[in-house]
């Protein structure tokens, strides 16, 4: 014991990997909460198969949870791992390529029996733990299964399966020991989760402690590590995931606008959490409607918005496709509506649990007719709160549907969040039409104000009975019109109304770097962390690189063209086959360069640095 040294580290990336039934997501989130509570900055990336229980022991069934924590500011879950926890052979094989040269690998040797090796695709007789192939790493071999069973030998009422289910607690306990943590946050969690099942609770705590004590008693481990608190702005923090933040942003907008929230949604990965979260918030008067399909999800939200609530629908790519016609209707009706797309790998069913940014063009152009809809995007888990709130503000104050683009990476990723206080949130002013203004002798549902926004008279308002619909409308009256000139006027007007939102959103700023120079890296959405870290690193090496990240994708901030024109090269990295770049080239006639990755995973800092350097 006395020989154990303590070493202070600045950055650590750990990946917990195992079979999808091994509880790696839980292990990861527990370690994350424990880390966050110490004031250490972090970012996480859960990566799991689409199947709930993919074939056991296979590469397809590997579920991973990566956490990057640091005493410095963290923007990404990290490119490569310092520590890999591999519960079986497949977990090791799947993650070997993302290890740092001097990484530590903690393996559960029970997961390397001949069956597991075969399922992981190793040829007969080959065991990576014995053939020297991973000798360059520091390999810590633990028989987790055996030690877990040993720890639970007094729990005679538990069967072998139930005992083995606690394996992840052993690993977590051991990692807690390695990083000098206490077990309190996880014991509290277990107590809340299993409080009523005493034996399950006690057995989990026992195994957690056994893992911790294992580090203490086995003398082979000579070093424990510590990561100090990060120097973050002062204030109160909590840990937040993207979808959680998004749901809260919607509730906040409801509270600050005085309009109740209605969510019409159909479960779809990776957007379902928002429906689940909002279903819990009934005390805020939130009405959630699990619709019979995606179309009914948006249609019911349109009905609710028509009734004067904030109508919201949440989905992912395939669901967006189904909602297309109804989006056009909402645009035509000119009523507020929030359409949330948590993007995932496409096309078609694609890669449901993997991330991608490939629905931007769909959001931009994916409707019949001239149907412009504002688009806003979130760039990190906590940013989802602000963006959801802002989407509601735009929808309510500009009488328009708004598409909010997030993605699977942000949705499931977590980070510390300096959460706002409700009094600091700018109220959203909404006025229903209940009386004629001076000089008005009749109600005109499509008479516009200076923002080109029409009045909102909701059912139940006497004297303002009127009809709206998807047929082309006569200017001002909203009556059905097939008049040629009127149609052209209305198309131009609806476009001008969306364009005019640019007067009511912030100008584009640079995230970092000089205002003029050689290279601007221009991003949107979840590539934020990777671009930011890459650009900051290059700047610290003396390169003239700047970073701008677009939140408002439609309309763009008024100065975006000017910002771009200050640079010799514009590099647009995207997790798609080049979508923002098409719009930027179209809009600003710049010869932007693309960097595209479509592997279902985020872009890493390292590959971006290489890419930017090609232009320097």
């Amino acid at each position: 014991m006395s020989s154990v040294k303590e070493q202070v580290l600045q950055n650590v990336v750990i990946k917990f990997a195992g079979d999808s039934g091994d509880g790696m997501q839980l292990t990861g989130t527990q370690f994350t909460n424990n880390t966050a509570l110490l004031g250490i900055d972090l970012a996480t990336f859960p990566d799991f198969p689409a199947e709930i229980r993919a074939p056991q022991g296979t590469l397809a069934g590997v579920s991973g949870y990566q956490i990057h924590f640091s005493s410095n500011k963290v923007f990404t879950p990290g490119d490569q791992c310092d520590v890999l926890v591999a519960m079986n052979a497949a977990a090791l094989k799947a993650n070997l390529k993302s290890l740092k040269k001097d990484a530590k690998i903690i393996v559960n040797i029970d997961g390397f029996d001949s069956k597991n090796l075969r399922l992981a695709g190793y040829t007969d007789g080959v065991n990576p733990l014995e053939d020297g192939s991973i000798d360059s790493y520091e390999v810590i071999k633990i028989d987790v299964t055996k030690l877990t069973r040993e720890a639970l030998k007094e729990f005679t009422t538990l069967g072998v399966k139930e005992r083995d289910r606690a394996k992840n607690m052993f690993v977590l306990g051991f990692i807690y020991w390695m990083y000098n943590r206490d077990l309190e946050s996880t014991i509290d969690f277990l107590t809340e989760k299993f409080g009523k099942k005493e034996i399950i609770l006690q057995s989990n705590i026992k195994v957690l402690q056994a893992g911790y004590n294992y580090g203490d008693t086995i003398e082979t481990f000579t070093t424990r590590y510590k990561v100090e608190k990060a120097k973050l702005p002062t204030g109160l923090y909590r840990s937040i995931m993207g979808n959680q933040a998004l749901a809260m942003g919607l509730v906040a907008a409801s509270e600050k606008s005085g309009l109740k929230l209605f969510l019409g949604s159909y479960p779809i990965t990776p957007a379902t959490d928002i429906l689940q979260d909002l279903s819990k918030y009934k005390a805020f008067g939130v009405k959630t409607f699990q619709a019979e399909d995606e179309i009914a999800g948006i249609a019911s939200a349109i009905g609710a918005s028509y009734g004067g609530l904030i109508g919201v629908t949440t989905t992912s790519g395939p669901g967006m496709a189904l909602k297309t016609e109804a989006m056009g209707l909402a645009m035509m009706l000119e009523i507020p509506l929030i359409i949330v797309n948590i993007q995932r790998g496409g096309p078609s069913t694609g890669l449901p649990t993997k991330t991608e940014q490939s629905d931007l063009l769909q959001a931009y152009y994916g409707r019949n007719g001239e149907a412009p809809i504002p688009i806003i995007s979130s760039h990190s888990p906590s940013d989802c709160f602000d963006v959801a709130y802002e989407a509601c503000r735009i929808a309510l104050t500009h009488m328009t549907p708004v598409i909010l683009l997030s993605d699977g990476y942000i949705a499931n990723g977590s980070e510390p969040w300096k959460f706002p206080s409700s009094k600091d949130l700018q109220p959203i002013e909404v006025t229903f039409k209940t009386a004629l203004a001076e000089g008005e002798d009749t109600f005109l549902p499509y008479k516009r104000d200076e923002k080109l926004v029409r009045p909102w008279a909701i059912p139940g308002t006497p004297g303002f009975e009127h009809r709206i619909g998807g047929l082309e409308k006569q200017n001002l009256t909203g009556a059905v019109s097939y008049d040629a000139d009127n149609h052209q006027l209305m198309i131009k007007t609806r476009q001008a109304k969306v364009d005019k939102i640019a007067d009511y959103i912030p100008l584009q700023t640079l995230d970092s770097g000089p205002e003029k120079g050689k290279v601007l890296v221009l991003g949107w959405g979840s590539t934020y962390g990777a671009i930011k870290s890459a650009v900051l690193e290059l700047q610290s090496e003396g390169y003239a690189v700047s970073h701008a990240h677009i939140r408002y994708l439609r309309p763009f901030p008024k100065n975006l063209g000017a910002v771009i024109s200050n640079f010799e090269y514009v590099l647009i990295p995207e997790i798609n086959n080049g979508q923002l770049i098409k719009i930027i080239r179209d809009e600003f006639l710049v010869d932007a360069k693309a960097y595209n990755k479509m592997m279902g995973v985020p872009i890493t800092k390292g590959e971006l640095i290489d890419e930017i350097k090609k232009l320097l």
Partner: protein
Amino acid sequence: MSTVAMEPQILTAKDFSNENEVRWCPGCGDYSILAQVQKVMPALGVPKENVVVVSGIGCSSRFPYYMNTYGMHSIHGRATAIASGLKAARPELSVWIVSGDGDSLSIGGNHTIHLLRRNFDVNLLVFNNQIYGLTKGQYSPTSESHKVTKTSPFGSIDHPFNPLALAMGADATFIARTMDRDPKHMQAVLTRSHQHKGASFVEIYQNCLIFNDGAFEIFTEKSSKADEALFLEHGKPLIFGAKQNKGIKLDGFKPIIVDLEEGASIDDIWVHDENDFYKAQILVRMFDDPKMEGHLPRPFGVFYQTERPCYEEDMQLQIEEIIASKGKGDLDKLLRGKEVWEIA
């Protein structure tokens, strides 16, 4: 469906019509339906501003434009889903969905069955003309088999829906059928539909003069109506015929026609009970092809009615109960979550 009457107002049918020129084909059955809806509205006691008519796409779906109430002409098949959201959001509104056989049984079939099972307190009026009119004459999901239309030049090989059986299968709480040519009957059915608390499914046989003229004339024309249409009345025996001499008797589970003048006793005739769930299943299945030898008459009126909690009320109740037990939501508490730490 029902909506609590506000203060009494004296409105007339005229108050529910507006200056918009009605543009259905001359002689279309839709005119009659519009007139009957406008006629019953004043007596329902619902303030005009609380009435919302939501429609989908099709000839019938132009309906909201001709009503001087709130209204939405939406997209094909989705009026039911839009109305669900509206009713959930604003339970106090009187919501009327106007739809056709294509709109509510084909493209919007899914939303129709889910609206019914959830039992939103709304009225769903299905104008059934057994044809696609707005697209100029293709067979619909209620067109009879072998029907020759533009898309079935050799006869349709589709088997038609029995709309009321479908509604019954979806656990609708109010099921009725009426016809465009019988204004009084339609008014009575519409009034009952409004009074029913829950989702009301009202099928209205509606003649399409241009593309399917005479589809229902056997039920609607004076010469055959008495023998072919069976008008249901709660508590009354199922009797029909020009001389009111024929009745329906149950032979086990099978309805058969008996003649009161030829020995059948009035005591053997099936007495209609709107609340009888099992008999309603038989009644909706009285759907014989009138060209068939020995066919049963087609029933009209209220087939079935029952009480079941309405979705929008349960939704509201759940919110109220949670607020009563836990208090109103506190945004700051929500944002703070369970675990926080301070960076000083």
